[in-house]
């Protein structure tokens, strides 16, 4: 039991140190979802001006490239702050085609 506790404490400490080095700030995916529904869905719905786009339309790397290179017409993003865009990016990234998905039938 003592050996297990020592091992767990060591692994926990190592993980804390490791995550301190690797931790990075991300956007808020829940806020991103609200912003996406309010600002993006009008154009990116079926039959819409921007064509149907859902988070599953692209992979995580593809979403990151779009936001890094700002590959979007300026009009569509003009009312969104950098923080808003970060949140939307996080939402799309978290629900991209290659992200973990809820597992249910249907």
């Amino acid at each position, binding site marked *: 039991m003592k050996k297990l506790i020592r091992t767990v404490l060591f692994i926990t400490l190592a993980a*804390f140190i*490791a995550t*301190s080095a690797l931790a990075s700030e991300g956007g808020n995916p829940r806020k991103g*979802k609200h912003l996406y529904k309010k600002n993006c869905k009008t154009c990116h719905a079926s039959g819409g001006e921007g064509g149907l786009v859902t988070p599953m339309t692209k992979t995580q790397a593809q979403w990151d490239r779009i936001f890094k290179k700002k590959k979007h017409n300026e009009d569509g993003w003009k009312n969104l702050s950098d923080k808003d865009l970060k949140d939307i990016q996080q939402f799309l990234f978290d629900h991209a085609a290659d992200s973990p998905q809820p597992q249910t*039938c*249907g």
Partner: protein
Amino acid sequence: MQKIFYLIMATLLALPMTAFAMNQEDAMMSELQKQIQELSGELEELSDRLDDAERHSTLDRIELTGDLRVKADSLHYNKVTVVEPPITTPVALPGGQMDGWNLNPDGTFKRHTSTLNNDVLYTTRLRLNMKARIWDNVKFNGRLLMYKNWGDSSGTKVFDSWDSFTMDGTSSGNTTDDTLHVERAFFDWSNINGSNFYLSIGRRPSTYGPPTQYRENELRGGTPSGHLVNFNFDGITAGYKLGELTGWEGQTVRFCYGQGFESEYGNGELWGEISAKDTHLGGFNIDVLNDGTNFIQLTAFRAQDISDGFKGTMAIPSSFLPPDLGSALLPGFNLESRYFGTTTIGNLNLAGIGYAREEDNGLVWFGSFGWTQTDPNGESGMFGGMLSDAKLDPVLGDTTGDGNVDSIVGMIPSGSSMEDKTRDGYSVYIGLQTPAPFGKFGLEYNYGSKYWMPFTQAQDDVVGSKLATRGHVGEAYYVIDINPRMFLKVGAIYYDYEYTGSGSPVGKPKKVKDVQDGKAYSMLPAIDEIWDFNASLTMRF
């Protein structure tokens, strides 16, 4: 003349300019042609590479993802009471009655209580998810799962609790061997004929359902409520995406049907000795709302004609064998046996309502209430009837050699149970998970009443499904997200059993205290409390 001279002079002057311009144009054309040729070459090369990629993706029909979890548990069993089994020599009770029970002079059952420690138990769980596109609106989903404890690939355990059976329904949550079992394999045929209906048949995604996914640090892992159903079964779901009509995001109504026990195939039916019926399960599973913040789920289903045991294998404890056979076995050897339910003991109704909320700041909290109702038919098998004990009849023989068959040489089930009352059981399950430095912190509590009888036996806690407990369970855990695909979890679970037989529909639940005091008989060891300290590392790929 002068005009002609000027014309000639102009022409002579222009000729070099024209020639120069024509040379420039030629050069440009030549450059453009060269660039076009280069671009054509690159396009051709890209097309060839795209052909290869397209061929690769067309022939690679199954998308594989998965996760690997390694876990260490330290288990402390407090007050484990083992009651001596019935004996074969007669015992005289006050009043002159003869009985086969193993009793102390004061009439209490002979038993012993001890504390057990398993300092460290390591397990590994490997899950491989499979997805494939069959057609535009038809897809395949499946999962292969291996769950074993280190150094053991025997596939069976010595029977000391209902969790020690190796059987179909718990193949994903019970450590067995290094075999990859098919934990789920089903197709989804969606938007049938352009409608909101879908059909899904196969081995169901019926484990890790809500709200149990939070303690697993993953997204919803199954369809039905994990508080009521965490059990592998084969069946059919017909669903309708009602949210498309009502506007309630994620609203889906599902009718699910399955078969939990096949009585007549593989049980020696040609010998004509089968009396148990097939066990059929059916009911409704409704996601009322699922909008990413609020989740509301209703469940109601029935298990019809439950038998006194599912088909499974186990190693028989020596104490269960007749003395002459038990003593003939060498130490360390157990008879491995296949068991199947021989008697239909009744029906079971289950229902529940669950709610979970995920706040914008990452805080999650949930609550679930479950109700079960057992409806026995008064019959019993070897291990008992539905939440009731088997009525035992003494077996008489001649132990003294005087020619009189008047000594009790054993006790056998009569085929009837001691009682056939309908019993209601209930359970509450609450929890919260909050963002914490480097990850998340979670607290959970659940309580199950005396007759609480869910189908959660495949929950992979090593001492048994915490949500099936007839008593109190508290859990605390800390998740450290090392990176988006890897996390460390340390935690502790405290089980406080009030009644015996958690997770089993067979046999009367006894107060653990009564078993400890020798006032009640329990065929299997009765545990009072368990502490489970655990640490695990999970990685997704």
